């Protein structure tokens, strides 16, 4: 009986250690993507870091309840989206706070382009395009922005976006279509 209890305790400990190791791997592999999504959504480095930390803290607390119905990335993305929603909801109440603490402005964000071997002209064109897309993204509703970024920055497919946002695929398509119309308009105004 006592030997059985000891064995049980050892098995539990081993299971916990395995789960911890699994979670550590998840953090290591998905943290940059979650941070990138939150940074693109909020355009605030500090806020994106804080929300990323909170996201993984929440994920760690609920790791045992993750049943693997969706990929870990989709599950984490869903947590991140909910945290972001909560943040904006709370922020609307804290109207006296500065809008962003360590915000990246549009010009600064558009500066970030991989150099490669492209010519100066191509770089200028790409910079201009990126600036216009940022402007369009800024003008999108929270939901449209989330869907747009998941599709065109994180390269998630429709079903993953639907799972992460809790929307139907049809609604995701509609949001994407509206977001793209806005980007088109912004790019069209450039010509």
């Amino acid at each position, binding site marked *: 009986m006592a030997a059985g209890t000891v064995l049980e305790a050892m098995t539990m400990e081993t299971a916990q250690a395995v789960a911890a190791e699994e979670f550590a791997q998840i953090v290591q592999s998905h943290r940059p993507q979650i941070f*990138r999504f939150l940074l*693109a959504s909020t355009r605030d480095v500090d806020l994106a870091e804080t929300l990323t930390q909170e996201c993984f803290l929440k994920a760690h607390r609920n790791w045992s309840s993750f049943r693997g119905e969706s990929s870990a990335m989709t599950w984490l993305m869903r947590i991140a989206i909910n945290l972001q929603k909560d943040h904006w909801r709370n922020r609307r109440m804290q109207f006296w706070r500065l809008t962003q*603490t360590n915000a990246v402005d549009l010009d600064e964000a558009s500066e970030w382009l991989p150099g490669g071997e492209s010519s100066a002209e191509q770089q200028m064109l790409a910079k201009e395009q990126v600036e216009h897309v940022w402007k369009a993204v800024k003008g999108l509703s929270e939901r449209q922005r989330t869907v747009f970024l998941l599709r065109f920055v994180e390269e998630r497919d429709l079903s993953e976006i639907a799972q992460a946002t809790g929307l139907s695929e049809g609604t995701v398509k509609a949001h994407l279509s509206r977001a793209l119309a806005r980007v088109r308009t912004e790019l069209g105004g450039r010509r």
Partner: protein
Amino acid sequence: MSFLKQNVQQTERIGGRGDELDLGLEPELEQALDAFRLSVHALSEAAYSRPRTVTVLTHRRVWRQAAGWALGCVLTAGIVSTGFYEQHQRQVAAQRAAQQAEQNRLAAQQMREQQMREEDELLAKVDSDVAREVPSAMEPLAQLVAEDESE
């Protein structure tokens, strides 16, 4: 690899994802979206690996929080005091209105009394005038009586 070539490869990758989404993206829009994705990736990578300045930010946040609380308190105090002031003003206005109504009532009463007094005086005057008139109407008869006695 040139930037454009990289873009084309990325576009093909997205186009070939095989999901049921057909957004009908024109080449320029695709190019812009690719450039945007690469830009966000580069920005995120740079921000992710930047050195952290926790102390400075914490300090700044504390000040911001304190300033936020102070502003919040001032606003709350302002709203509360405005409420009290409004209430006080309403009470003063109500008192003034009551005083005014009382004064009007007294003035009306005085006016009524004055009118009654004037009416009484008028009636008294009429009575006295009538009382004086009646004997003078008998005066010719009295004269006749006097003349007869003298004859």
